[in-house]
């Protein structure tokens, strides 16, 4: 197991070097494509000539820098990120054990699965009015909505990952007299790790998406709130600056989780397909 791990780790670092060379070329094409898009945006904004409807990219850039410098953007972003962190950790702490237990224990699965399947189609966003009534406007509402959104990717991916572990791994351990608890910790969990990490990425994405909706409607702070706030003030360039930072942060979160995936499970198919 260890040899195997080291081998894949070595292969992984070789491909990191290859990717760095490709990365410079990739950055050039990225810059070229985005420059073209920004130019188009600029021309359209000049043609519309109404900064409330569509401010140009330069104006939005300026607002972005100004808001970062004054600290208000950082403040909103930190509020949102903290909420995401709390709900993500809570969803993982409940979702992963639940999914693993469902994957390993058939009767438990038979009982819990209908509940999951009944609740899952009701999107987190549809809970907002009821949750607003129960929790009120504040920190608890966005955290609950994001938790709800992130829970199901955790449960479903942990479940599928445990189910996909070849039964002979656990059988082999059992014939050698390994106790059940150690089988879970040393056989099932490592083998299911790639799938669980994919679930974590999906969960973070789902949480981030519901964050905007929850904060836009029911929170007095955060990035989602800021977007709507600047619309009401008709400060469209500031509004778009917040939208841009939502995109950048969402992308960064996914990158960070991908890096975690590379470090913790370099052998996983999701990592290898990127190479």
């Amino acid at each position: 197991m260890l040899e195997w791990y080291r081998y894949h780790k070595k292969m992984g670092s070789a491909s990191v070097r290859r990717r760095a060379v490709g990365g410079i070329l990739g950055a050039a094409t990225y810059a070229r494509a985005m420059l073209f898009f920004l130019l188009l945006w600029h021309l359209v904004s000049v043609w519309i000539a109404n900064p409330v409807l569509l401010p140009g990219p330069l104006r939005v850039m300026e607002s972005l820098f100004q808001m970062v410098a004054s600290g208000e953007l950082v403040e909103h972003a930190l509020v949102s990120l903290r909420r995401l962190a709390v709900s993500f950790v809570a969803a993982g702490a409940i979702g992963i054990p639940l999914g693993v237990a469902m994957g390993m224990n058939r009767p438990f699965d038979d009982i819990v699965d209908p509940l999951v399947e009944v609740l899952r189609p009701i999107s987190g966003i549809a809970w907002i009015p009821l949750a607003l009534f129960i929790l009120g406007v504040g920190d608890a509402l966005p955290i609950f909505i994001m938790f709800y959104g992130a829970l199901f990717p955790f449960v479903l991916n942990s479940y599928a990952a445990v189910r996909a572990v070849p039964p002979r791994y656990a059988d082999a351990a059992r014939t050698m007299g390994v106790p059940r608890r150690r089988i879970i910790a040393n056989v099932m969990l490592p083998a299911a790790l790639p799938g669980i990490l994919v679930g974590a990425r999906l969960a973070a994405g789902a949480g981030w998406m519901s964050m905007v909706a929850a904060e836009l409607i029911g929170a007095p702070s955060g990035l989602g709130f800021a977007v709507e706030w600047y619309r009401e003030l008709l400060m469209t360039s500031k509004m778009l600056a917040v939208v841009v930072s939502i995109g950048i942060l969402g992308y960064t979160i996914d990158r960070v989780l991908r890096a975690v995936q590379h470090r913790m499970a370099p052998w996983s198919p999701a990592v290898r397909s990127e190479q």
Partner: protein
Amino acid sequence: MSRAPALRALIAPLLLVLLWQVWASNLPARRHVPTPTKVFAAAYELIATGELPLALGQSLLRVIAGFAVAAVIALALGLLMGYFRAVGRNVDPVVESFRPIAPIAFLPLAILWFGTGTPAAVFIVAYAAFFPIIVNTIHGVRSVDASLARAALTMGVRRATILRTVILPGALPQIFTGARLGMGVAWTSIIAAELAVGAKAGSGGSGGIGQMMFVFYAYSVELNSIVVCMISVGLIALAIDRGLLWLQRRSMPWIEDKR
């Protein structure tokens, strides 16, 4: 999952409903608290007066309109991006830059541009559905066996014809998967869009199930009706997903679906 004995499958949901009823009827301030029996009564009333079907229909029409817009653009662009490397390389950065931005973040902009009516909601739905469709189309086109296209090329078939007769059918299963995912996020985002529009425009907006929920929350405080709306939102989401899955299996029986 599907072989679950019917009896066991009923335990947890029934227990949940029972707990809910007992808990709700023992609360001190129980005037507004929803209970299963009151929810049933509210559901009956909302369906009998035609309010619920009307709102659901309104939302569904918007989803279909937005989805159609997204599908046309994403399909055309995705085919070109998957088939011609140059197009893919140059458009991909723009698509990938927009992908991490939550659809709802564009709602304030959509309200500025289109007002609080149907067009803003359709815009959000189209934006949300666009990404799953285009990403899956590109991937589907790229994973078509290259030797099929080469075989057609050696026989002197024109590139445009190959795109239509070899690449498109080969990529169809994946495109359909993208469409199913797109429809799912479209339905989620219409609820969010209508809720937010309702929150910002009051009851004088444009209807739809999301706004109906918000009116029940903010104006008439009918929690039972909110729960009815939530359940119907879930049922429609389930129906859309299962319906498209059935259609996919039925129209492309040769593919092995990975869920």
